[in-house]
């Protein structure tokens, strides 16, 4: 309930508390540490990983979080921290500066990320050295405040973070909505691009907590096509149908409403501090539709409670099944 700024009625408050109560984790509380807590280590041979400090006799935590152990490695996985990039992460970011040969992006990391002109696919898609002309034309590709989807390429020697957009599925995102949620609510998964066929909407979960909900665009990239097929087999037929239609210059109202509905579903989820993933979002959207709620009504207290209750029920059934 930490971040929720809503006026609940008394009954709603009770229901919500009950639901959250049932959700609260029963995991070993010893695993959570705060700064300067001593982490119990059995042997000397242990490896001290991120978030730990060797203080001679004992190992102490330098961040608040959960102690994780892999073989003899001990490290602390921090909670509620800024985004910490890892190579290969898919992220959504916003251009804040067009610099020589590079764009700077805000990605919710402790520093701005860099997307080099040379790690971009040029619109014509050919392989050649970037010239001064290309550099002058950089603004025709991205300008400030554009929203971009890219992949983390790695850290340079100077510590700056480099991105890349090495296939057609990356690039500028248009006609949609950018949501910012705490990055720890997005779990790294195999698939971060989702095409919700029934709504004609694309959904991209950036690992940095930036989530893109936008109108579906056809991608001309064999690799992406494959992945879409895998994640949702019935997509393929209608995807091609959509593409064959005439060029649309505006987003239909219906699609816009869906975009907002999905975006609101995610907002509710993050407000309740639930992990955001495709299944949960879809369920919430279905719930809102079945309740016949308007898009704006989703952000009201009642829906929050309903979502929490639904989630509690879902988890209890899944644990029972186990």
């Amino acid at each position, binding site marked *: 309930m930490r971040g929720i700024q809503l006026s609940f009625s008394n009954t709603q408050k009770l229901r919500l508390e009950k639901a959250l109560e049932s959700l609260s984790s029963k995991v070993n509380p010893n695993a959570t540490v705060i700064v300067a807590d001593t982490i119990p280590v059995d042997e000397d041979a242990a*490896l001290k990983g991120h978030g730990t400090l060797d203080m001679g006799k004992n190992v102490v935590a330098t961040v608040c979080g959960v102690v994780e152990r892999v073989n003899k490695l001990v490290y602390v996985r921090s909670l509620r921290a800024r985004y910490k990039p890892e190579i290969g992460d898919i992220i959504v970011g916003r251009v804040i500066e067009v610099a020589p040969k590079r764009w700077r992006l805000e990605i919710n990391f402790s520093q701005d990320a860099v997307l080099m002109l040379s790690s971009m696919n040029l619109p014509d898609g050919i*392989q050649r050295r970037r010239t001064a002309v290309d550099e002058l034309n950089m603004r025709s590709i991205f300008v400030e405040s554009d929203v971009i989807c890219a992949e983390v390429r790695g850290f340079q020697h100077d510590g700056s973070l480099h991105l890349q957009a090495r296939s057609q599925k990356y690039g500028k995102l248009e006609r949609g909505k950018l949501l910012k949620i705490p990055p720890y609510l997005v779990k790294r998964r*195999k698939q971060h691009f989702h095409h919700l066929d029934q709504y004609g909407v694309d959904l991209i979960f950036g690992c940095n907590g930036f989530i893109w909900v936008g109108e579906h665009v056809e991608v001309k990239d064999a690799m992406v096509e494959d992945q879409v097929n895998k994640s949702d087999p019935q997509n393929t037929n209608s995807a091609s149908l959509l593409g064959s239609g005439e060029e649309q210059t505006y987003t239909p109202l219906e699609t816009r409403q869906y975009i907002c509905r999905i975006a609101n579903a995610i907002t509710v989820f993050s407000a309740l501090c639930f992990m955001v993933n495709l299944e949960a979002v879809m369920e919430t959207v279905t719930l809102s539709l079945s309740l016949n709620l308007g898009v704006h009504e989703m952000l009201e207290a009642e829906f929050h409670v309903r979502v929490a209750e639904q989630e509690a029920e879902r988890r209890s059934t899944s644990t029972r099944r186990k």
Partner: protein
Amino acid sequence: MMVESPILGKRKLDNEENETTTKRARTCVHEVAVPSNYTSTNNESLHGTLSNPIYNGQMAKIYPFKLDPFQEISISCLERKESVLVSAHTSAGKTAVAEYAIAMSFRDKQRVIYTSPLKALSNQKYRELSHEFNDVGLMTGDVTIMPNASCLVMTTEILRGMLYRGSELLKEVAWVIFDEIHYMKDRERGVVWEESIIFLPPEIKMVFLSATMSNATEFAQWICNIHKQPCHVVYTDFRPTPLQHYVFPVGGVGLYLVVDDNEQFREDNFLKLQDTLTKRKMGSANGKAGGRSGKGGSGSSGVSDIYKIVKMIMERKFQPVIIFSFSRRECEQHAMSMTKLDFNTEEEKEAVEQVFHSAVACLTEEDRNLPAIELMLPLLQRGIAVHHSGLLPVIKELVELLFQEGLIKALFATETFAMGLNMPAKTVVFTSVKKFDGDSHRYIGSGEYIQMSGRAGRRGKDEGGICIIMINEQVNVREGGKDWGWGVVVNVVKKPPAALGSLPAALSASRGDGYIVDTLLHCSLGSSENGSRPKPCPPRPGEKGEMHVVPVQLPLISSLSKLRISVPSDLRPLEARQSIFLAVQELEKRFPEGLPKLNPVKDMGIEDPEVVDMVNQIEELEKKLFSHPLQKSQNEHQLKCFQRKAEVNHEIQQLKSKMCDSQLQKFRDELRNRSQVLKKLGHIDADGVVQLKGRAACLIDTGDELLVTELMFNGTFNDLNHHQVAALVSCFIPGDRSEEQIQLRYELAKPLQQLQDSARRIAEIQHECKLEIKVDEYVEASVRPFLMDVIYCWSMGASFAEVIQMTDIFEGSIIRLARRLDEFLNQLKAAAHAVGETDLENKFRAASDSIRRGIMFANSLYL
């Protein structure tokens, strides 16, 4: 699922060139594999068609000489922006094609990558290309020069690393040139090529340069399948300098020319050669010491043979000569046996000494006095040198340079010298035709022979190359053929009415395995009269036939009779042949049961237990066959049904095995098993998302990443100092084996034990996950403690001279291992950084620093 099979266009180009100077046509074959439904966007008037590429536009590079047809076609393919595989002999001029691709990229402001299989080759290629072009860079594990150049020379491993890490450079690369692509069949490293080719983005086109290979078409189809783009094959066996192949029988007196410079096989000489060999065989049969003493024998008598050959070559001015042997020790022995010879003039000697001193100047005072270096100079001065992978890199490169300058007249080399850079000699000598390939002694393949013999004949300098093969006895026994001298009566059952024909079969053992037997057959009369080439066919019953000599392939003969008929010496007159027919008819009357068959045991006195066994088996089976009730029943219908059943059964079997073998299925299973292993070890979680441990493992690719991350996460490295770390980690690097008993000091034995335990555990987990693996073999193969002690001492500061005393492994191998070890330590450092363990990171850095010194990391002379 198989992708639609590509359509193949095939044609042959003949271009008779300058008939006066050379009779041989410069032929070249062009093929193209095209994905179905592919339409080319190229302008036909400028680029020709897919199956007939021509280029009429402006050339990106002008050559001072007229291009060969194969070069022209390759260049047209390049201009069409399509991948091409060029397969030609070493000296044919493949480099011209590569240079054109580079020039083209420069013209179009694109980047181009040139990959070669070995670091040394990359260095040489870099030197060569930077003479030709000005914007050339080099990237190997050791050095990086101008990484932003338009043309980058690198090893294939580096390219693979770039592909995995998604280097931005690849966005600007238009062409990748794979040199020596036939390396792909290498058992250990072949996968590097495979991965690089698969992961290259489809926009990047490829040029493959290869020595002649047999499955070029298949290769092109594979490229076509995975990249969905046409791939051309340009193949030529044209050789600019013709070769003469001689054979020297070991212990013999002279050379026998077996293939002359028109590529004609000289049978007469070959027969003569066989003659001497048989004679020698007779001689040696008397004093049969130890049947398989071929190797030992060549050690004593072979050396003097080599001495003889080399001397003769020098006398006839056939130098420079490369003498290939297949073992490094043999190489050195041969070179040492030449002590009495001196091929260089005084001036040349001085030049050698000068080059030598400037080359070793990059070493420290102490290293210059190493025996391996000091002993080399007197040898080099006399124009004799050794070249193999076990030498110090400095010496190796020095020898290469001197050889190119013509200051070395006789070079004793192993196979490695035959790869890559253009270093031809006038003459090539093979000391043996067998080599040890890790598993067994085998005959060298035709591809290997072609590659090595291709070193003979310098383009532009020599009119022809000379290739001498020393054959020892065993080969001859096999090749010389069995004693087929007995008379055989050939009973050709396939043509039942004319069961006959007899002739002491003159077996001409052609170069392949197919024997051709000349038989006398009773043929239909008419057949021989219509047309120039009669097709022999048996006369119909009652028709009159004529006897003809017909060559027949051996497998077509169904059985041999033990009867022999004396055959007139001259078979040309019809009567003579007809008389044999009568004789056979007479025989048939005498043996109404059918002609008695030749029994290998009784009639020929063969005592080989295998043959006897076989014959007994055949007899038994025949008995069974005749006693079977169906043998007597003549019901055709029934038989047909049975046959049908057998066929169907067979088909079922085949389909089943196809299903199991289906590569994809196999791969899928293996993938599942492998990811299970990764899950068990904690590299990935249940959803297949890479975890911290996996991320650490990703950073390592020089050694066994599973094993080393396991060691790291179990804290094995924590208790060790950085010298021990370097020594322990050296076990991961593949290298030469040593036969010596390894006795390790205590501070190394314990970590080694831990390493072996971990290896065993990992092997067991893999075994549990149904991967085909033998636990002990895995442990044996992944832990190689042969140089642990050496590295330990080196890391502690011992000098190189001290270190090489500790093992019997070649210096070159030690240095190679140390360099890879350094690479590996750097990767471990990165992995430790990813985990967040600073102590360990510092330890790996210290270990790396402690081995990076002196002669082990001396710079290449090519740079």
